[in-house]
């Protein structure tokens, strides 16, 4: 055959073959998706600070451990209320003359997905503490510290944000204060901007595939009026997934940042109305503590799940209050809507 002996023909053949395939699976689909996807009407472009924060995010290689994509499978439901679609990324364009577009979808989850972190965790104080030393808020975390986003000063100047570090984690002189640098503030601004945007009215959300049997069985037990028993959702697990990052596993919170649940009046209150309200709507009434996001709404918690969390909180760490039923919670949740 000619091709065995003619290098020109061989080179042209494999180059053309490769280019045609490339056109079909890379350039073509890329151009098609680039041109046929508009940003969602509800989405907003990043502000100046948020854009600067995204650069900090890129520069420190956060994408190595944190993905920013909610796949259309049930497993990913914890990371967002709906699966990600191409339009979610349509606003992202080339970062700068030197740097390429950064959708930051990522390929690994050594840490949690951050698509919706702005909704899940809207407290500045939490983010600053977590960036300064992740083990202050999550003892088991293996995330690196980002000390270079902070500065130790004799006293805070005007415009400085002071970070209250618990004494046992203070690795600077106790008479000095820890303040956030511009980079740190920008990064947190960017993280808080990461929120899933609601699809325009009337457009149904794409569905999550691979529904799990476990969840189906939970739904089938909805009818029971009894207080959550062995068959209901695991309150301790839900607490760990949704509440523990701030209120801690011992329920004591963090001084100066997150209030304790242990011995809390609201938790021990026999009337569950306020507690359900806080879980579903968030809370920002006490100045000495950070803002609480609308955890329940963000995570799409069902009445059973909220009841399980509440009962876990009402019966742990020495708390001993009347347990609530899913029906009670459901009634309050309905009235909140």
């Amino acid at each position, binding site marked *: 055959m000619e091709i065995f002996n003619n290098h020109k023909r061989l080179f042209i053949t494999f180059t053309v073959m490769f280019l045609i*395939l490339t056109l079909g699976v890379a350039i073509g689909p890329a151009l098609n998706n680039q041109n046929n996807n508009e940003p969602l009407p509800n989405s907003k472009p990043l502000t100046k600070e948020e854009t600067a924060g995204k650069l900090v995010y890129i520069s420190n290689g956060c994408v190595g451990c944190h993905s920013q994509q909610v*796949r259309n499978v049930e*497993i990913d439901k914890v990371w967002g209320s709906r699966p990600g679609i*191409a339009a979610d990324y349509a606003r992202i*364009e080339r970062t700068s003359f030197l740097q390429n577009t950064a959708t930051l979808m990522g390929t690994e989850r050594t840490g949690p997905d951050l698509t919706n972190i702005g909704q899940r965790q809207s407290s500045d104080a939490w983010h600053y503490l977590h960036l300064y030393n992740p083990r202050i808020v999550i003892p088991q975390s293996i995330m690196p510290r980002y000390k270079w986003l902070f500065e130790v000063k004799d006293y805070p100047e005007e415009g400085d944000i002071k970070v209250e570090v618990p004494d046992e984690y203070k690795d600077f002189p106790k008479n000095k204060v820890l303040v956030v640098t511009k980079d740190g503030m920008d990064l947190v601004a960017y993280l808080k901007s990461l929120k899933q945007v609601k699809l325009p009215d009337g457009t149904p959300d794409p569905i999550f*595939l691979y529904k799990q049997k476990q969840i189906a069985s939970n739904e089938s037990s909805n009818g029971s009026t009894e207080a959550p028993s062995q068959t209901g959702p695991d309150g301790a*697990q839900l607490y760990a997934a949704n509440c523990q990052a701030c209120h801690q596993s011992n329920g004591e919170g963090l001084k100066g940042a997150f209030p304790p649940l242990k011995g809390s009046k609201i938790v021990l209150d026999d009337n569950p109305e306020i507690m359900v309200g806080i879980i579903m709507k968030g809370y920002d009434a006490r100045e000495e503590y950070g803002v609480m996001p609308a955890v329940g709404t963000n995570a799409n918690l069902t009445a059973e799940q909220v009841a399980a969390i509440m009962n876990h909180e009402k019966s742990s760490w020495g708390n001993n209050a009347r347990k609530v039923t899913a029906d009670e919670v459901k009634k309050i949740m309905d009235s909140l809507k």
Partner: protein
Amino acid sequence: MKRYLNFLIFGFFLVLFPLIGFSQTDKPNSFFPNFNISTSDFILIIIFLLIFFLLLFSFGIYKKTAAYFRSRKNQDADKKLENFDLKELETLKKLKSKLNNPSNKIQILLLFLLLSPNLLLAQDEAATREGIFSEYGVIITIILILIPLILSIVYLIVRIRKSLKTYFNKSDQISAQELSTYIKDNIDTFKDEEIDVLKEALSFELPENSISGHLSPKDPHKLITNISTEHYLSFFARKRNPIKRPKIDPKLTSLIMWFLGSAIFWLLVGTTVGEYLGIKFVAPEIDNFSWLSFGRLRPVHTNLVFWAWASLGMLGLGYYVVPTVGNTSIASLKHGWYSLFFINLSHLLGTLSLMAGYNNGGGEYREYVWPIMIFFMIGLSISMVNYYNTIAMRKTKEIYISNWYISSALVFIVIIAVISYLPFWQDGIGETIIQGYYMHQAVGLWFMMFCLGLLYYFLPQQFNKPIYSYSLGILAFWTQILFYTLIGTHHFVFSALPWWLQTVAIVGSVGMLIPVTSGTINFLMTFKGDWTKVSNSYSLPFFLVGVIYYFTGSYQGTAEAFRSTNLIWHFSDFTIAHSHITMYGIISFILFAGIYAIVPRLTGNEPPQLTVGAHFWLALVGLQFYTIPLMIGGTLKGLSWAEGKPFIDSVVLMGPYWLWRAIGGSMMLLSHFFLGYNFYKMLAKKETIDVRERAFNILEKHLIALETEENSKNSVQ
């Protein structure tokens, strides 16, 4: 034999065929679409097959035993005098006069049983989620794990047969005892005259030297007298030295050495960084400097081991292989040096910029910004043109298959890099589509393609025989281009990328079984019949590991691409294990092998065999410690996510597996220091002086001086 093999291959693909069809669907499927066969049935079938083979085996044993007992009944022939040989006759005579008792030794039988029950247990543990075993990826992985188990059962059967043989021998001894007693008891039936006649007839012999004579042999070519022998104790297996080849241009040698030397330098830097990253998983607060933080060092590690170590190593070996298989010299040495310079420059700048926090964005392996990447591309393009010109000036008519693979790999990587750095199609999700294309094409059409080209040269060269099948190599070449180009998007299954594109990628991943299977068959059949050479060589074991991982690693890649397996393994540490199996087990092992295959030929110095052995075993065992815990941990992590447990649980769960990974990584790193030492030993000039060689060098100089003197005298006259 060959037809038989063809049938086997055909059957193999027939079995795999349903996979191609079903890879697009979500539900676990059966191999037999018309019957509803679940995994438990499948396992049951395997068990029935095993029982069938065991029955076959026991039947064979029964037949052998029966034959043995039949032969026992037929012992009368042993008792006739005519069948005795000379020695036996002598013994008989002596015995007749003396009558002594013979003594018997008792043999002790030892049975070594080799079994690995852990493998079986591991599967039981993983079965926490229902239905996980009915998914193709998982089944394929289990089969890959089962292969060594089944091999060990075969080994066990071989041992049992052997010990049965020993047992039969033992009973033969008993019958010998019986025969001797019979002879002793009936000694008078053998008559002396008869014995003597037989003895004389049998003991006829030519007188000594009646044919050869008494003169010492004439040995004009010193074939008998001049034998060199080595006298020292050998503590480990001696490997054969490579056959000396005609020397190649020392200038080319020096270029290749610089390529390989810088590759090994970057390997040491890159894997030290990798080891440090592995430690950070276990000890996250080991340092708090921004330049050494995890997010910045991770791309430094991947870029250095990918683009610096593997690329430079491949190009260095390519500068030897490309001209050699064309029976010519390299087109331009100068361009080779330019290429080396630009590639090294890009990695130096790239490493510094990444550590300083300046990178291109989120894309893996695309972290260098374009002003730095452009140096790398210039370096590759120079080598591409250089290789092309070398192939154009080849002295052979046909282009040897190695050069197909190597030159196409260079063309592809340049195209891939240009397309992936041009900004026109990279807004929004377009970036991710290009990213999938880029990261997988770089792996499959650059590293894998080039290394296959190297294999097609080195394996025949090491065995001194042609590759098993040239046509299989060509089939693999075109199918590799066809299928590999399609599969980039399988890194983004279930993401916002177009669903059809994901499906194409998954189908392409299954299609990859064709080039991988034909390549593996080709290489292993080249090994066949020459397995003894593997233990005699220090480069062939590396090649063997590379070929085996080529098979398992690539099949694992296909298994991972299915939607069902993506559910468990995607985003977990399983992917990290897979990338190390392929980039280290395949690419790096082939490069190690290539280095040990050609550097001693080029410099004339052998590496110390002990440290080559240390390099091999540390790298291989280290890789197991690295990958197996990560695969187990990655699966458990995925299952924990699937069960909806809090995310932090999966971090805590991975702790011990990350520790094992760090241990394996340390062994791999240590092995690279051995490689560095071996490379130094192969480069360093010989320190011991061969006295005789040196003396003759002096004499030769003297001779030349005399001759020139004579010549000048002549010219004067």
